[in-house]
Structure formats: structure tokens, C-alpha cells
């Protein structure tokens, strides 16, 4: 999977590395600010209130 992405990125090793990093950071931000907050509400993790 990661090899497949790597081969499709343009440029040399340095440029590809930078692009991979940007992709990883983008995915991490997406998870942290959108996916996780959504999941926190919809998954039953310590989410039992009282009354």
C-alpha cells in the first residue's frame, strides 16, 4: 500500500519523503479533528452518564 503510493509520487527521494510526510500529517489532522470527535460521541467508550 505504502509502496504503491511511493511509486506514484513524482520527484526524487527527498521530494517523495516530503510528500509522504505531508500526507501523513494531513491524515493525522483529519483523524484528530474530525474522525475522532465523531467516534467519541458514537462509540460506547466511557460514555455512560447517570440519570
Amino acid at each position: 500500500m505504502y509502496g504503491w503510493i511511493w511509486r506514484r509520487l513524482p520527484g526524487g527521494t527527498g521530494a517523495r519523503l516530503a510528500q509522504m510526510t505531508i500526507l501523513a500529517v494531513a491524515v493525522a489532522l483529519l483523524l484528530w479533528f474530525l474522525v475522532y470527535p465523531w467516534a467519541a460521541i458514537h462509540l460506547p467508550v466511557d460514555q455512560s452518564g447517570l440519570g
Partner: protein
Amino acid sequence: MRGCVRLYLRAAGEILISLGVVVLGFMAYMYWGTAVREGSAQRTFVSELHQQWGSTGPSFAVLTDPDNLTPGQPFALMRIPRLGRSWQFAVVQGTGLPQLALGPGHVPGSALPGQVGNFAVAGHRVTAGNPFWSLPSLRAGDLVYVETIAGTYEYRVTGKPDLVSADDTAMLSPVPGHPGATPRQRLITLITCDPPWTGTNRIVVTGALVATLPRGPGIEG
């Protein structure tokens, strides 16, 4: 053919490892991420409370009648030295998820700090700053300070933490474990989820009032 199998296996492995990292990230978010909103709410609560208590405006009436408390309203500061010198949370009224997301919540209908009966407080084990993460480490004799406009109430934990099922609410009644009985003691009950990350059981810690002090941290230093 063999190369093909190897390719699929590698892809499957990469996907599984990635999913593992995503799940670990989710746990990190629950532990630290959800504390950001709670932390800013708590800072606001603490300064609001100090402002209210310092002024001559609202009277003790707020604290002698639970009906005057609106859901989400902070009204007390709780300190438990066993959980750390800096462990302090503003207690809000109500134990619904919107309230617990901002801090430990006072169980509606239970007594207020210092009153005869049971001052019951529920808090998240994980998420929202993990207020009661270490609740099971409390032991008999540990002190719990609850500061309100009327003074600081010093409670002493009376026994080891109890484990009850999530639907057992008898521990929250005025006489813990005996719903309907007439209370004589001034008690405190702290309750959270166990095991962490689940809603299967509840850890319950009970204490009794030992002193009423002038308003202040209660703890030396």
C-alpha cells in the same frame, strides 16, 4: 503466483498495522484530546466561582436549595490530595454526558456538600481530563475537600472502593445501599466507570464529613 500472494499479504499487513495506529490514536484522543475542551471550561469555572464567592452578590440560597442549580452550573471545587497536589476540579450540576464532558457532576437530587444525606458526584474515568482515572487508588482515611461559597467540607474516605454493576444506583441514595432509609450522616459518594474505557461496572468511593472549615483550599501549602 507466489509473488502475487506475497503482495497481498504485504498489503494486508500494512493495512492492519495502519488500523492499529488509528486505534491507538483514538485512545490518545480520548485521553488527551477530550481534555482540551474540559480544561478551558474548568479554567472558566474556577475563575467564575472565585469571582462569585469574592463578591457580596449571590447568597447562600444557591447552595441550600438544589433546585436553584441549573444543569452544567459549577458550584463547588473538589480537591483530593491522594490524587495529586494539583488535582482540582470544579463540580458541575448534573451527570448527563454534556455536563460530564466539562467536569465531575453532582447527581441531581442527591444532597449538597455538607448536608445530611449523600453528596454524590460522578466523573469520567477516561475523557474530559480523566478526573477519576485514579479513583480506585483511594483508601480509608484519605481526605476529600469540597469548597463552596459556604465553606470547605472535609470528608474522610470510609472504606476501600466498591465495585458495583452499572445499573446499581443504590449507592447514590441518601443512605448508600439502602434506598428509602432516612439519612442521619453527612456522606460523600464518588463514582466512575470500571474497567476504564467501558461502562460495564462502577467504582464507588464513600466518605463521611469530618470537619467544616472556613472557605479555602483546606490543604496546607
